[in-house]
């Protein structure tokens, strides 16, 4: 008898809690006809630690840590990721990241070698610049584990990049995200090499070309 009653009470309590939870859920859920149903609104970019969903707001740390916006305010804006253009920030000396753990004077040895990878179809060719990479990275970060150091020796595809391989080891995780197509696909196809269809596709967006190539020294 008692067991049954308790079971009943237990179930009631559970459903009451569930009901409360769902109401909270619903009141929190966005308008079903919100303008952007899937895209994250700009107001949610660069959140402070206590509101970013991964820091525990109760933790002392969440209060003491620096909000990204404070650090980024003086840096050139980017289109995605941290919404900072790290290449430009470094070139403009807005930041001075050390090349050595202890020695603030150590300077990277830059290698200015561009590798052009021709792309089939309408997309502009990919220019891989060693210069911007050797600003940040050591040769051993890429060679030979990610890329065999020989032009054309590596099979690279967009599918692999999106899955976090090849260029996607860094791009889409820490370096600028894959959404910024034109930073990699920066070389318009040579007229001789393009078919009529490709030439047409390239001509359809002439305005965007100079902006994309401007970043390439």
């Amino acid at each position, binding site marked *: 008898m*008692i067991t049954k009653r308790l079971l009943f009470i237990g179930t009631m309590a559970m459903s009451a809690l569930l009901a409360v939870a769902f109401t909270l859920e619903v009141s929190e859920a966005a308008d079903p006809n919100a303008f952007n149903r*899937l895209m994250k609104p700009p107001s949610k970019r660069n959140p402070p630690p206590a509101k970013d969903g991964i820091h525990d707001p109760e933790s002392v740390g969440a209060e*003491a840590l620096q909000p*990204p916006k404070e650090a980024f305010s003086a840096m050139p804006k980017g289109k995605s990721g941290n919404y900072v253009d790290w290449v430009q920030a470094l070139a403009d000396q807005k930041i001075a990241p050390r090349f050595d*753990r202890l020695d603030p004077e150590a300077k990277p040895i830059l290698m200015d070698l561009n590798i052009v990878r021709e792309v089939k179809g309408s997309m502009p060719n990919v220019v891989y610049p060693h210069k911007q990479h050797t600003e940040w*990275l050591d040769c051993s970060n890429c060679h030979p584990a990610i890329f065999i150091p020989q032009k054309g020796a590596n099979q690279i595809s967009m599918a692999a990049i*999106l899955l976090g391989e090849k260029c996607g080891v860094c791009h889409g995780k820490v370096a600028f995200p894959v959404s910024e197509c034109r930073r990699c696909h920066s070389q318009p196809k040579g007229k001789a090499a393009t078919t009529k269809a490709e030439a047409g596709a390239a001509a359809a967006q002439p305005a965007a070309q100079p902006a994309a190539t401007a970043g390439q020294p």
Partner: protein
Amino acid sequence: MAIERKQWKSAIVIAATAWMAVLFGFAPSEATAEYGDVVMNEYSDEAGMRPVVFPHWFHRIRFRCKVCHADLGFKFQAGGNDINMLKIIDGEYCGACHNGDVAWSVENCDLCHSGKAGTPTQVHESTLQKLIMPAGGAPKK
């Protein structure tokens, strides 16, 4: 009487469990973390510590990738370095800098261990994580 109280207790426990399940199960996974933040939780939860949050943006303002990923030997993989406190106090990994010399020292537990309990090890806001339709075979760590 004693039995009744015990059963009451279990009813409350069940209800509380359901409540937790609802909170964790349905709560929108509204992590809008900063791009590149790495949560490290291979051992922390089990040890009763908050998971560690490593901010890439903060460190890359101060160091090139090379310092950590070549000189200090951090592999490019969240959770792939088997970091623990003994290694840190011996000057490896985070401990190469968080030693009271280059940066504040390890006794500031809460500055590193600031994550929400239960957050799995992963790099946040990655292209893979943010694909609107999850890519086939995406490893969900």
